[in-house]
């Protein structure tokens, strides 16, 4: 099987301090360490496990981003992916979800695939739209929130996380799965993997390679506009009511003050 995994480089969610540039409405990336998206790591882990079980598959990671997004691809290669593809072009900066999906779909179409793995959403943008769009553009089914899967005789059987528990779903290949976050424990690369990753092939694609116009992607093609970006309100300290016999009455009073009662 030819397995493709869409990955992304994001500011390290563990250390990033969200600063918003009021002009561009984008995150200030200055002084931030970029890493392979932890969500993508989980999708990659699911893909690697599938490939290991079947023993004959290749795993290719595809990313779109600036030149240095290759670092994220190298990390994925160190974890065990066989090769990588990086879509990079100055004209791609500022792409919206659809622009990103078009670029990814175009590259994936050229590379060829049996199954595509995505994270449910990226850990910086959180739009969660790209997997669905890529599937639509490629004309293949999209299974979302997959937490485990098996492929036999060209048919995927997987478990989909739903509010009640999970559904077991089935679908013939080719298709796209979006892996539920936290469903797999991403591996730490072994040293052999890190060394081997340095020698693995990463193919670069530009807009021209993908037969895309600047109108299709990038700032120019973006139809979705971010109007405002606001920091999360800091959580207020709670109130602890100690019960001295009048606890219930005091809680009722607090609720009344807040207009709940």
């Amino acid at each position: 099987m030819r397995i493709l995994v869409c990955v992304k480089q994001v500011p390290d969610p563990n250390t990033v301090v969200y600063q918003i540039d009021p002009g561009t409405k984008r995150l200030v990336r200055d002084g931030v360490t970029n890493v392979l998206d932890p969500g993508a790591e989980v999708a990659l882990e699911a893909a690697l496990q599938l490939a290991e079980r079947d023993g004959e598959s290749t795993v290719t990671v595809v990313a779109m981003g600036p030149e240095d997004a290759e670092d994220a691809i190298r990390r994925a290669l160190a974890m065990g992916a066989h090769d990588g593809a990086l879509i990079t072009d100055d004209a791609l900066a500022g792409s919206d979800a659809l622009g990103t999906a078009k670029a990814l779909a175009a590259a994936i179409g050229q590379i060829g695939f049996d199954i595509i793995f995505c994270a449910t959403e990226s850990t910086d943008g959180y739009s969660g739209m790209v997997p669905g769009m890529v599937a639509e553009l490629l004309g293949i089914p999209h299974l979302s929130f997959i937490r485990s899967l098996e492929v036999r005789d060209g048919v995927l059987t997987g478990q989909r996380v739903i509010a009640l528990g999970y559904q077991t779903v089935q679908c013939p290949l080719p298709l796209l799965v979006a892996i539920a976050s936290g469903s797999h424990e991403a591996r730490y690369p072994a040293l052999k993997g890190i060394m081997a990753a340095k020698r693995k092939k990463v193919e670069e694609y530009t807009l021209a390679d993908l037969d895309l116009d600047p109108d299709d992607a990038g700032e120019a093609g973006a139809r979705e506009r971010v109007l405002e970006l606001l920091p999360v309100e800091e959580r207020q300290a709670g109130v602890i009511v100690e019960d001295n016999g009048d606890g219930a009455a005091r809680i009722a009073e607090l609720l009344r003050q807040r207009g709940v009662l």
Partner: protein
Amino acid sequence: MSPTINIAGQLLLLALIIGAGALFAVRTARLYRIMMAGAPTTRRGDEGTRLRRFATMVLGQSKMFEKPAIGVAHFLIFWGFLLLTVSVVQIMLEGLLGGFSLPAIGRARWFIAANDIIAALVIVSLLYAAYRRLRVRPWHLTTQLDAWIILGAIGAHLTALLLAEGFAAAAFGNEGYHWSLAGAALGGPLAALGPTGARIGYVAFWWVHVLLILGLVTYIPLSKHFHIITSPLNVYFRSTRPKGELPKIENIEEAEHFGVGQVQQFTWKDILDGYACTECGRCTAACPATLTGKPLDPKKIIVDTRLATYAQAGVRMLGRRETRAITPETPLIGGLIGDDELWSCTTCMACIEACPVAIEHVPKIVDMRRNLVLEETRFPPELTKVFNSLERNSNPFGLRARTRADWAKGLGLTILGERPDEPVDVLYWVGCYGSFDERNVRVARALSRVLRAAGINFGILGVEEGCTGDPARRAGNEYLYQVLAQGNVETLQGYGVKKIVTACPHCMNTIKNEYPQFGGDFEVVHHSQFIADLLKSGRLKLDGGLDKRAITFHDPCYLGRYNDVYDAPREVVNGLGAEVTEMRRSRNKALCCGGGGARALMEERIGKKMSHNRLDDVLETGCGTLAAGCPFCITMFEDAIGSTGNAERVQVEDLAELVAARLPKESAGAAAAD
């Protein structure tokens, strides 16, 4: 009369000696060959140190005397055995050649008398050893059949010797060729058996005693008693490198395998360690992990490497109950040694310190961790975050590298990169805990005030400082360690740093003992040493009037056992006008807090918390102040004190904090922006 009677007896004896010798040689040669097939390690040079250690540890049996009773007993057995070896040679030749005696000593009365006395003393010592195993039964001493075979065989051999002498005296009269002390004592009573009975007794016991010693010779390589040959060698070949230096994996990017996953990947010295272990369990008794119910037992690690080596050599150890089926294919890790054992180790080195035969446990444990991390990627899940953060932020906490110097805001400290033209005398290496951990930031600020007050021209690296790599290295991630170490050495060399002071013994150990592997040679001192010197020279003056709270001091493993610094912290406490109330286990026997070997960054899931165990020692002193000198210790103790609800009884304070609190008002005022 010769005990071999005639030529047939002589030939029989000759055949037995050759047979026993050959069996011994074949078995030993196999073990030797498999040992020499181990990885290389240089154990040459420093002959002076080696011979000195040999003299004290082997000839003087120094470590044995830490437990006096068995120390004396073993001393007697050891020296007795050496001297009796001469008499065994005499006896064999006598039997072979019929009535032969070694020139000068063979039939000298003093020699024979000395032999008999020693034999008797050794028998008493053996009885004590047996008594200890049966009645005293130290919990760490697991007795295998092997031990009884050895005690029994030596005891029976010597008893037979004395009896043979007694019968000889009874048969031939206690004089001339047959004179002996045993004969003087036993000859009379044994004469009651009549001359024929006495002769038969003589020949029979002589043969029994010869057969026992020959049997023992063939048995030795298959037994823990092999240590009579291997442990003296082991002491001699013990590393003479700094104790705190782990071996470096050279050319790690090209290496074929990393660390040790199979016993053949150990160095020959590691394999010799296995051969040398006497299974005395002193390491077990000292291990903070064993003591708190973790699966780790340092003795087991060593015995398992030995069993694995024997399996490779196609030799079986005898006289031991072994429920596991050990074949050459049994995996070392996961088969013999469980992952949890390896991850329980704090690298505190208490085992190495306790071992009477100089076995080096810690490098083996780290080598196996290397295999787990670099090859198998099998390690506690918490470490993934630690490794990722070390790689990305150069600290284990997942905090931004850019904020590393935030602790120093407002203190007006010199940051080397900001004033490249103003050289400083001393670099204060803050470390990750001092930089990021709230509790230890207080220590960093206190130490800065102290250095200020003493008028020291010092600076810090600020955001250019990175983790020394100690937690990565001890957790087995040698690659990540090397990347971090390389970076730091370059930064330090870039600023021409010569002298470094630090409040972290782990940083101290790595920079001092391990950075030379990367060409970094720096003079590194612990802040306790630095402050003790300042107090001695009078550069630092402290206010008197210390309240009489009793102070105890917890020796950090990486300061004490790793770097032999025991007195400086106590001198600092003396400088405060107080005396250290010692804990039950202190100095080189101090019990680890549980934080080393990257343990502070992992969950402690199994058994009692090591920090709680050590806190018991602290509470036992009744002291209200626990002086510490290591950020790991402080973190572990703060947690232990808090979670056991002992905050009222004891407070942990770094030496620098104790000193800073006693700075005279004016200098404190001038220095404090705190």
